[in-house]
């Protein structure tokens, strides 16, 4: 057999990653490589990219919302870094934008690259000199060690406990279904489909909760967006200024933010938070103002939290518009300096005076609570989930397959399809916790049921 030389470039499954260092910078580059990379890029840019040409274009998310505007460059196989089809997206250096772009790529069939994977592919496709082999091996080793350490850290405490709890329930369900399929003649205590459906619903709820918490953990790392909204003259800009200048917050200049002229980056309990002041929402015939309101609505849809600012001294109706997701809203009642009667704060209502700086500490405490949850804030609480983006994606995939399994289960003929969905759901959770083999599953079946004639 001759020396191992691949006859042609092998295009593997598409992978993506941030190619620039994480954190803020003027620019961030997201790289996509592999089979179908071109088609995926077309979905993102809505353009047919020409090889080796930088295209100035919008980047769209799965719902055709614009994530950012920037440059996309297509490097056609074999003339690329990895030898595969590669697309580089140059976007603004905001971690949130890059994250969103990566998420969208993952929705479109790519997966996050493992450490050193781009280099590895480049090497395997003869794009890197042989002498660099050792260096790459070292890189893989050191980065996986690092990843392993990080993974262990992030899997400590509550998060791993919860993922394992979902897994246990999932394995339990799979055990029942697989026993149905592999041992139809045995007398095992069969769970009825309706029962399984009920369990699946519980499991979905549980996973949903876990996903929310994982997103929270991810937020710890990548930051959150809080939008300030309200009727004109409610005091939105003053609040922004107060928050940006308060002692607990650190003001930073944001480079390259042409889309959100009125925004500030602050930090709350270690979480990077971008505050966005939106245009006052009202009916208008002014084209410029209408454009502003449209943008405001977009910002509100994407925000993690919304501060709905009202003017307690005003008699106009200041109800929250129905387009706004009330679950994200904290109503901030401003201008209490103009009113005699004092009111009590609760989880949804905070009373402040932006002018006198009254109630700001309480507002920030409430924001921290909403962003991080109670556990994180209590001193003896669990370590926050240091969930990574890949964890969140894995949980989302698992959730999607649980839903599909639910549908399949309600029709008895499709038990094996439900089983397939559950298998994939578990495979996704396995990304977080480690592998589980069919033999482990059989072991569960045999230990629980009396099988065998």
């Amino acid at each position, binding site marked *: 057999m001759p020396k191992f030389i691949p006859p042609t470039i092998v295009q*593997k499954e598409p992978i993506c990653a941030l190619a620039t260092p994480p954190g803020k910078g003027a620019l961030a580059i997201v790289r996509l490589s592999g089979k179908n990379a071109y088609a995926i890029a077309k979905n993102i840019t809505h353009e047919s990219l020409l090889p080796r040409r930088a295209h100035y274009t919008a980047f769209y998310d799965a719902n055709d919302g614009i994530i950012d505007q920037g440059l996309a460059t297509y490097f056609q196989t074999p003339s690329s870094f990895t030898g595969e089809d590669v697309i580089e997206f140059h976007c603004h250096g905001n971690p949130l934008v890059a994250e969103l772009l990566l998420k969208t790529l993952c929705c479109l069939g790519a997966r996050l690259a493992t450490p*050193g994977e781009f280099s590895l592919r480049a*090497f395997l496709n003869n794009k890197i000199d042989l002498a660099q082999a050792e260096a790459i091996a070292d890189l893989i080793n050191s980065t996986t060690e690092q990843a392993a350490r990080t993974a262990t850290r992030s899997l400590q405490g509550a998060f791993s406990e919860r993922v394992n709890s979902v897994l246990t329930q999932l394995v339990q369900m799979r055990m029942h279904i697989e026993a149905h399929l592999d041992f139809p003649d045995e007398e095992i205590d069969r769970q009825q489909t309706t029962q399984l459906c009920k369990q699946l619903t519980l499991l979905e709820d549980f996973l949903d909760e876990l996903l929310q918490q994982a997103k929270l953990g991810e937020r710890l790392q990548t930051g959150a967006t809080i939008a300030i909204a309200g009727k004109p003259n409610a005091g939105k800009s003053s609040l922004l200024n107060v928050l940006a200048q308060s002692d607990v917050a650190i003001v930073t200049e944001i480079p390259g933010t042409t889309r959100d002229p009125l925004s500030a980056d602050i930090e709350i309990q270690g979480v990077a938070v971008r505050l966005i002041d939106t245009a006052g929402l009202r009916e208008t015939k002014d084209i410029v103002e209408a454009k502003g309101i449209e943008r405001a609505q977009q910002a509100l849809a994407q925000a993690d939290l919304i501060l709905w600012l009202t003017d307690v001294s005003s008699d106009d109706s200041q109800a929250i518009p129905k387009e706004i997701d009330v679950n994200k809203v904290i109503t901030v009642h401003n201008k209490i300096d103009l009113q005699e009667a004092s009111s009590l704060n609760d989880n949804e209502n905070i009373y402040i005076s932006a002018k006198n700086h009254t109630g700001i500490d309480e507002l920030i405490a409430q924001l921290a609570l909403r962003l991080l949850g109670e556990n994180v804030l209590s001193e003896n609480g669990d370590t926050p989930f240091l969930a990574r983006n890949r964890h969140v994606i894995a949980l989302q995939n698992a959730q999607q397959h649980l839903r599909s399994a639910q549908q399949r289960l309600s029709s008895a003929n499709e038990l094996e399809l439900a089983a397939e969905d559950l298998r994939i759901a578990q495979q996704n959770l396995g990304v977080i916790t480690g592998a589980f083999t069919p033999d482990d599953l059989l072991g569960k079946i045999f230990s629980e049921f009396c099988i065998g*004639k």
Partner: protein
Amino acid sequence: MTSKDQQYDVIVIGGGHAGTEAALAAARMGAQTLLITHNIETIGQMSCNPAIGGIGKSHLVKEIDAMGGVMALAADQGGIQFRVLNSRKGPAVRATRAQSDRVLYKAAIRQQVENQVNLQIFQQAVDDLLIENDCICGVVTQSGLTFSAQSVVLTTGTFLGGKIHIGNDNYSAGRAGDPPAITLAKRLRELSLRVGRLKTGTPPRIDGRSIDYSQLEEQPGDTPTPVFSFMGSRELHPQQVSCFITYTNETTHEIIQQDLRLSPMYNGNIDSTGPRYCPSIEDKVTRFAERNQHQIFIEPEGLQTHEVYPNGISTSLPFETQQKFVRSVKGFENAHITRPGYAIEYDYFDPRDLQPSLETKAIQGLFFAGQINGTTGYEEAAAQGLVAGINAVRRTQEQDAWVPRRDQAYIGVMIDDLVTSGTIEPYRMFTSRAEFRLLLRQDNADLRLSEMANELGCLPAKQWQAFSEKREALETQQQRLKSCFVQPGEMGAEVEEKILGKKLKHEYSMYELLRRPEVDFEKLQQLSKQDFSSIPSTVKEQLEIQAKYAGYIERQNLEVEKLSHQEEVKLSPDMNYAAINGLSNEAKQKLMEIKPHTIGQAARISGITPSTISLLLVHLKSKPVQKIAS
């Protein structure tokens, strides 16, 4: 010196399910083949329960059938009760099972073996293997006769070092009534192969005339009777009979509990591992003490015998206890036991010492197939026999081994499981072992394998022709379904409403309609003016399944494709993993032990991480790779 007429291409030792498929496959491929058995009368014997198939197992049988093997056809000729299991579930988990008349089944196999061109039979025990420079060159029989061959397939089942236990008595034995192959076992133990010990058990057999069937639940076969082989037909089936079901009760359990200390498994005489999925009645009563009854499935042994096989009460309790507990069962009050149940311990060789071709790593040209590799079941044995037989021939022709991948066949799943992970209990097939279960259906075994079998030269010409016709019809009809449209109101709006729940709003291709869960060919016929009556029913079935599973099949295919790169990168068996920089000691040790054949197999070894795989890839690229020994 051996005379010319004692020279063969391939010698198969053993005439069980593995041995017969191995010998037949080798002979079909044109190799001069000798099957040596200690007793010609036992060729094709079912030594355990009289049934072929079942879930996971019938998948294997259909695959063997699609490769030109004889098991399914013999099951059609010997089957006296046929059922499709999981018939109300999806096609991927449907399975066929045939209760078989032992005599008819054996006769069918014997007939195939005796009439196979290039195949000769010889009766005598084999006592020794001729090995030169770690390479097999022949065998020596009990009386000192020598036969030479380049490849030898060993299929000695549970005969190696067999020891039977009934109560506190134990004695050396092969399968019921046969002598054990002790000399050969001793010889094999001298080779550098790892040996383990397994156990399995059988229930006592009962004279059917002493059973009161009127008290039992009857289970007739399915109508219309399912057919096992792609080349089979209902006309081959003998007279059909029923199975019966009864249950143990609390009295039964008390009797067993009382005498538990007399069971060799509970008094320490047996410490080898039995299968988790086939526990003895002692085990069931102990481990699932909360159950007040256990099912007994009464399988007829044949049309010409009264003996029945009460499946579910395998035991090694003393005979007196067996009699007592059997007679406590409803319908068995006057039961006469014709043969006591027993547990048998036997040697097996660690399958991790095999290459995926089933050739031993230690001795070139020596192949192992069947229970000797730690599996259980006729079907598992036969499937290995087929693969070993094919590769035994390919070795003599200096061709690369043929092994189906995990996404191509249950046979591939089984072999990969065995050589990659080994086994600590008798290995049995289940559909849940196959990650590509939706692709590996019994209905499409021919579409998955027959073309390969034809290329390998082990598919009879007649079968190839029948298969080609079916495949062509399938392609033509699929084209037709995709290109023909049903117009709204074609057969009247009422029909549409009745079948689909609402009227068609625009035209649909027939393929699109068939994808809907509520539409089958019969319904499609009602919706369309086209005539489908000339399409063979197997083709219709295939078209329906392909249409309805389409989305899931596509996804599994994507997964297969994702993994295929790994399967294509070969690893040399003489690779020195210890010298690779960066590998953990655990990874080095595991890789040295298993010596995986591909990167894909390496990735499936427990404890091997993706980064290990990356390092291996880098290593492969930077060093020239040696030729893989074939």
